[in-house]
């Protein structure tokens, strides 16, 4: 029970991060976010990412509602949503989601509804994967913090 393995957890986290970098899911800017976290703002990354999740899900809902409408033609509005999604994704280092938005935007500029529907599916899929992985990351981090606290208390 004592072997909650702070070191193991840290290794797990680094491994997951390395994987996500390797897959191109995250980029350097995610590391920038981590650099902004310190004792004065210990949950900064978690807070920003949660805001990102909240905003992204709103945008995805909006996109789906737009496209589900058979008489849909407001590609400009779609472009605005995509720009927002692209911007916030690049701000947190979500490289793959950002790239999918970019491709999606190109399709929407061709006024191709079928293409947009396909692009939306890809976007939803990518976003889901990102969200799951980030949750995993936060979970490991949380465990590591708790394990570190336990170890410290035992040594007391």
């Amino acid at each position, binding site marked *: 029970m004592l072997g909650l393995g702070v070191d193991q957890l840290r290794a797990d986290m680094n491994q997951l991060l390395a994987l996500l970098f390797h897959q191109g899911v995250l980029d350097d800017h995610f590391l920038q976010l981590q650099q*902004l976290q310190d004792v004065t703002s210990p949950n900064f990354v978690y807070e920003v990412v949660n805001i990102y999740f909240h905003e992204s899900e709103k945008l995805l809902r909006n996109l789906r509602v737009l496209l589900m409408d058979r008489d849909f033609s407001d590609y400009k509005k779609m472009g605005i949503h995509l720009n927002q999604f692209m911007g916030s994704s*690049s701000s947190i280092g979500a490289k793959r989601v950002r790239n999918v938005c970019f491709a999606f935007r190109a399709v929407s500029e061709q006024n191709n509804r079928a293409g947009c529907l396909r692009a939306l599916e890809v976007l939803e899929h990518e976003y889901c994967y990102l969200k799951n992985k980030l949750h995993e990351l936060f979970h490991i981090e949380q465990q590591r913090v708790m394990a570190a606290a336990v170890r410290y208390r035992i040594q007391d």
Partner: protein
Amino acid sequence: MTRNGVFSRRQKLEKLDGFKSFDHPPPDSEELHVLAVDDSLVDRKVIERLLTISSCKVTAVDSGRRALQFLGLDEESSSVGFDGLKVNLIITDYCMPGMTGYELLKKIKESSTFREIPVVIMSSENILARIDRCLEEGAEEYIVKPVKLSDVKRLKDYITKEEGEGEKSEERVTLKRKFQDACDNSPSSSTPSSPTPSSPLSPFSSPLSSPSLLESPLRRLKTNDGD
């Protein structure tokens, strides 16, 4: 330092809600006060953190309209006597609903009270025409998002230097103006800043090597034959 003639009225600011601003003790603190404008909540949170970690005071608002209200420039509100806290830098997103960052930039540069405040534009788009337009309108710099800590540090160093060397920057402006004059006048006329009056080289070549013009890491030099 009331270089812009803006009188600081902190007490009034506390009665305002809707603006998120930091409370700092001494009124003549060395900290820079930055007004950040961005409609994206994610970006607002990030830029706020970037600035705070760089020891700046931050006021973050979500629209150009709110920014103007904060500065006391909004025509629609009866800004009786409210001038806002002294702002050392305005950093704004380009793409915003309602008023774009470019439109906000124009409004600020049109104001006699606030035109001296440096304005930086942020954008996720790297569009040359857009960059040119912003710089021509007087933006200090155009930063492609995502904004990095090094960007903020560079800006802060530049602004701090500007504030501290108020006279020197005026000198720089005068030198720049002379450069313009030198270019406008016929090649035969000489000014103190040109090397030799009988130089066969074009008048453009010498001022570019002037150290004071090159000091600014940000401002793109525009020559007379610029596009």
